């Protein structure tokens, strides 16, 4: 255990080594560490952003889906309405046609019965005259009683 000049040599070596470390060891390692910290921070930020983007996209997609569903429902209800309208129209048309046919038939039947009545009336007059002729035989002048018969005809 002696003190000697080794002490100062060691001091100088110490300072030289420390200087070397400061110059060539410390800065590159700290730079790498800082850069990596930066990269990690960037990566985390990117991940956060991607997560936010994903949430945004999902929201947008669900919005679109909801909108599509709504418009489809609207479309379908419109179509249903239209179909119902068409059915309603067709039904009304049918009723109208039936009614018109019935009316026409009724009218035709009315005319026919009138015509039958008229011809019956003609025949009644002729039959009455013929009957009267047979009953009265020559006593009756057709011409003299024509007025009377016409009056009778109109009363039928």
């Amino acid at each position: 255990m002696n003190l000697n000049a080794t002490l100062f040599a060691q001091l100088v070596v110490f300072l030289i080594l420390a200087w070397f470390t400061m110059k060539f060891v410390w800065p590159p390692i700290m730079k790498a560490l800082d850069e990596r910290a930066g990269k990690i921070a960037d990566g985390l930020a990117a991940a956060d952003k991607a997560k936010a983007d994903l949430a945004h996209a999902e929201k947008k997609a669900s919005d679109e889906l909801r909108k599509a569903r709504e418009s489809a429902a609207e479309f379908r209800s419109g179509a249903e309405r239209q179909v119902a309208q068409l059915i309603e129209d067709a039904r009304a048309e049918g009723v109208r046609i039936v009614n018109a046919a019935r009316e026409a038939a009724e009218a035709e039947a009315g005319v026919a019965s009138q015509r039958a009545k008229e011809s019956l009336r003609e025949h009644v007059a002729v039959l009455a005259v013929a009957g009267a002729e047979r009953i009265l035989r020559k006593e009756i002048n057709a011409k003299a009683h024509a007025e009377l018969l016409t009056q009778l005809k109109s009363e039928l």
Partner: protein
Amino acid sequence: MAAEHAPNASEYIVHHLTHLNSLGHKQAALVDWSVFHLDTLFWSVSLGLVAVLILARAAAKATSGVPGRFQAAVEILVEMVESQSKSIVHGDRTFIAPVALTVFVWIFFMNAMDLLPLDLLPRLWGGVYAVAGHDPAHAYLRMVPTADLNATLGMSLGVLLLCIYYSIKIKGIGGWIHELFTAPFGSHPVLYPINFAMQMIEFVAKTVSHGMRLFGNMYAGELIFMLIALMGAAWAGTASGALLWVGGVVAGTIWAIFHILIITLQAFIFMMLTLVYIGQAHETH
């Protein structure tokens, strides 16, 4: 200590505790500034170079991408030092943090020399000495630089210089001198000499204890390895000797495992105290 007889316990330890110095024999005076410990210088410079070159290699290959295991290990170390220095030193740390890293890795490497087999390198050195035609009994080599007070005090002196440098840099030369005379007791002419004396005691105590702590731990650790080695060496022939050999193996194992903790802890303590002392230089009273 002639080559023909095996050294006794005392000779063995003295031999192992003698430095290879520029004199070629043991330094006589306690303090002699003309002498160098060649073994301490060789091992500390070599290990320092190994340490910084390993770190520089990691630094040169450092990428900000996915790190390999080696890079990750160095990064863990650097981040540990960075977080410690950040919490202790408030100011510009462009030099201080690298100093702390250097101190930690370098001292760890120097301390780790203690874990090499005690006689391995001295015996090899003895062989080299013998080949060169010298008496191998005079081939001294101590391989743990931190078990040399010169090395540890040299480093703590370096820390002291840094403390003074940063004191002046932060407070200005006037501010620092003012602080030397007014802290810790206050600004009063009567207190100036007391303050100054306290400051000087503080500086000396800090520096000496800083260096002595590491030296003491490593020196004591080395000494215990030597005692354990002596225990193992006593095996020759007798039954109690064989038991001692077993004891030596067991004790050596236990002490080496415990020493892994000590070398790391002492390197860490030296680094932390370096940061604390330099951090104190940054604080104005």
